[in-house]
């Protein structure tokens, strides 16, 4: 991360990315670049392909056509296992509906991301506890997701996404399932993260979130980028 960030290099590079689901065209030739250290927000009506775009960048799905390059990796050339390793090392994901592992307590949900890479349990848990502390939910470390509030769950989700110090943090409607107060807290968190150099790509419906968090607004419609511009906040 640091290398790319220092030089403000292109971290994400999409060239003519197209994604079809049967007849439906979710992405219709998207070309887009995101530089290290940037905070970008993708906005657009429901069903226009925003989540699909994030999935492409995270290597969770493959484009029908076009290339996706993230941190120098051409994702089209990576196999499933290599993609998993790529995600571990470079990507942190935050979901609208948290997607925590129901069967694991908060601490282990966070630590898991590091343990998968072979980090010893002790080290992983120590760092996870630090992160939970920074996010203000250390007190709920032993709680199962089902017993946490939405805001708490999302903070655990953010902690998990940050666990492996990802080059790129992807957030799909991170505040979408939260009340306005919790949403604001999560928003502040993301802004702070970006301030210390975290590259951020947020998908949101929320114009306020977009303008406050992001330095750049990407407007999406019918699977295409229809406009880009600088936003007020961010760097």
């Amino acid at each position, binding site marked *: 991360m640091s290398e790319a960030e220092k030089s403000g290099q292109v971290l994400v590079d999409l060239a003519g990315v197209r994604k079809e689901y049967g007849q439906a065209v979710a992405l219709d030739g998207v070309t887009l670049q995101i530089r290290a250290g940037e905070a970008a927000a993708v906005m657009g009506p429901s069903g226009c392909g925003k989540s699909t775009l994030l999935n492409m960048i*995270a290597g969770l799905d493959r484009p029908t056509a076009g290339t996706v390059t993230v941190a120098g990796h051409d994702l089209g050339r990576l196999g499933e296992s290599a993609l998993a390793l790529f995600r571990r090392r470079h*990507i942190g*994901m935050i979901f609208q509906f948290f*997607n925590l592992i*129901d069967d694991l*307590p908060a601490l282990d949900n966070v630590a*898991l991301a590091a343990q998968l890479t072979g980090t010893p349990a*002790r080290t992983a848990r120590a760092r996870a506890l630090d992160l939970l502390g920074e996010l203000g939910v250390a007190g709920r470390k032993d709680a199962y997701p089902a017993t946490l509030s939405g805001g708490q769950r999302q903070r655990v989700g953010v902690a*998990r996404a940050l666990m492996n110090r990802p080059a790129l943090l992807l957030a799909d409607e991170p505040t979408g399932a939260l009340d306005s107060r919790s949403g604001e807290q999560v928003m502040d968190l993301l802004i702070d993260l970006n301030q210390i150099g975290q590259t951020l790509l947020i998908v949101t419906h929320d114009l306020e979130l977009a303008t406050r968090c992001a330095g750049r607004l990407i407007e999406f419609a019918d699977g295409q980028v229809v406009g880009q511009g600088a936003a007020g906040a961010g760097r």
Partner: protein
Amino acid sequence: MSAVWRTARAAVARRRVQTLLIGLVVLCCTATAVLALGLLDAATTPFDRAFEHQRGAHVVASFDAAKANPAALARTAARPGVQAAAGPFGQVVADFPRTTDIPEAEGPLTIAGRAGPGGPVDRVSVLYGRWARAPGEIVLNLPAADGPRRPQALGARLTAPGLPPLTVVGLASSMSRSADAWVTPAQMAALRPRAVQMLYRFEEAATGPELRAAMAALSDGLPAGALASAATHLALRQAFADLAAAYLPLLTVFGVLALLVAVLIVAGVVSGAVVSGLRHIGVLKALGFTPGQVVAVYLTMVSVPAAIGAALGAAAGAALAGPVLRAAFQGVDAGVAEIGFGGWVPGVCLAGMPLLVAAAALVPALRARRLSAAAAISAGSAPRPGRGLRVQRALGGARLPRPVSLGLGLPFARPGRTAMTMAAIVVGLTSVTLTTGLGVTMAAFAAADRPPAGQVGVRVGEAAFGENAPRLDDRRIEALLRSLPGVRQVTAKVFRQVRLAGQARRGDINFQRGDTSPLAAQVVQGRWFDGPGQIVAPPAFLSQRGLAVGDRITLLLNGRRAEARIVGRLMSGDARFAWASWDTLTALDPRASADTYEVRLAAGVDPRRYADAVRAADPGLHPSFSLETGTTAATVVGVAGVFTALLIAVAALGVFNTVLLTTRERRRELGVLKSIGMTPRQVTVMTVTSVAAQGAAGALIAIPAGMLAHRLIVDNVGIVEFPDAMKDVFQPSHLVALALAGVVIAVLGALAPACSAARLTVAAVLHAE
């Protein structure tokens, strides 16, 4: 209703695998149930049907002709309580030596004089040929009508001391077993019978006391001691149900077991389907479905495949039943009873299985009905902290690869779901352990009854039968048989009828010398004889004479006597026979010689070649051998095999289905894990570890449970006492195979959804949820 139907249809379409599995499980279970109930029904009703059809005799009475005159006997037909009577028929017992190949025409035969097969009682069925019309003609009773056809039996000539030669003109079957053979009344009169037979049907004939009372009332007007003996239909019925060979009880156990397991697995699979649909139920409720409609949706979802499965299963069961029943009843003296079962059997199964399925679905469906929509939506997704948490924490910190420790921890997070999976594994594996064990025991039992391959019996020719007598004497024959190539062991034997002091019944004792007979392996109490004055006998021989192992008896033969002690009891066998050593016979008959030699050949030696060598060496020796290793063994194993196969299929489907469901529920989680960097391999390792752990734990419970159940059953069921060798059937390799089978089935059930989840792109999995 149309909303319910449409929703159920959509749900079925989305859960094709689950629907298919429910159908398959119900199919296998219904087939098993049809077979099991059919077997139980067939064990009793065919006898009744055939017996009633022949107007079978409740009592076959034989009277002393010197004490009761025919007119007085004929009048007994009018006594109160007598429904119908036939007779009097003259009756003699004649001892027929073996002169033909007809086993029914050998030994002491009871012959009755009857003008025809019909009459008010005991309407004998003539199967081949015709009834006797003239003196010199005889009709034989076939205890089993469906044996091989023996047209060559007609025309055979039977000779016995004191009788004119008799020509077999017919083969018939009497369910009452009133006689072993029949001649015309004129022929009978010429034989000067000293006994007279009467056949009775009574108004009250269901129990022993009723029959005794009826007979007492009947012999009231007759001179004391006129009634010589009376055989009741109860004994015949018993003999039929007991199935002479003792494996029907075991087959029955198989049937009951299969039924039970089928029910358990169906219940498990169906309630699993409902439980795993809880979230769906919550959504339906949120949509405004009434609780009743929700129940209806779920009942429809499981009842449709269940009904189809039951229909196909009943058809399959009915198709399988013919061969299975024929095999099960082979060797039973069924008379003309047609082995089969009533139409109610498939009917009950056809109606019962879907009802059972609906009932199994109803319990969890009703629970879901009470659940609030919110609770249902989050049902199963809220593990409670507690012991599970501690285990999870410990595992999370353990020095294991994380996918492995995750997999081990999963079962603890959801005790309910784990219990469901474990229950399926335990029920399935216990029953498979039990049935395979029973199968091995029954195979061993059936095999013990048959001459093993590589055994040649050598009979000494008898001049009385028109055969050459051997040139060599007894001892030289034995030496000859031992000297021919390929011989491993030779046992010389002779059957002698011996009186036992103080006993009315004689015993046919087989005296043996030479190598120990393989029968010695079937001693279940005491030991095989190893010196003079020692007797080994089957349980029936002992119980009918009030004897037990350790008792002393005196043998009487030709005016000589020999003291003997019962030293061993065999597993099973005929009540007439017992075994003793040659020295015991020498004491009774110093000049006795063997008439049969049992030769066991070394492995791989062709019995044909050996037999040829024997004939060449002395044309007075008649070797015989069977090339097939026991058809009974094959058929019993076949019957057990059918049940075992069905049970294994049902158990495997049950486990597969449960694991499939629980893993499928985890698909979203698998997607999440992949999104944070779990490789497909790690996903597979985790899933497999999780179910393999449950499979192994299930095996730890199920295998000992199955072994215990097997032991309980072989110790307590049936009239056979199995020797330990037939009870200790679980070889280490067998157990390992069983445990592996449990784990493998569980893993297979998990792999399909795990692989599809691992193969699917994460986006698709997460999108689908």
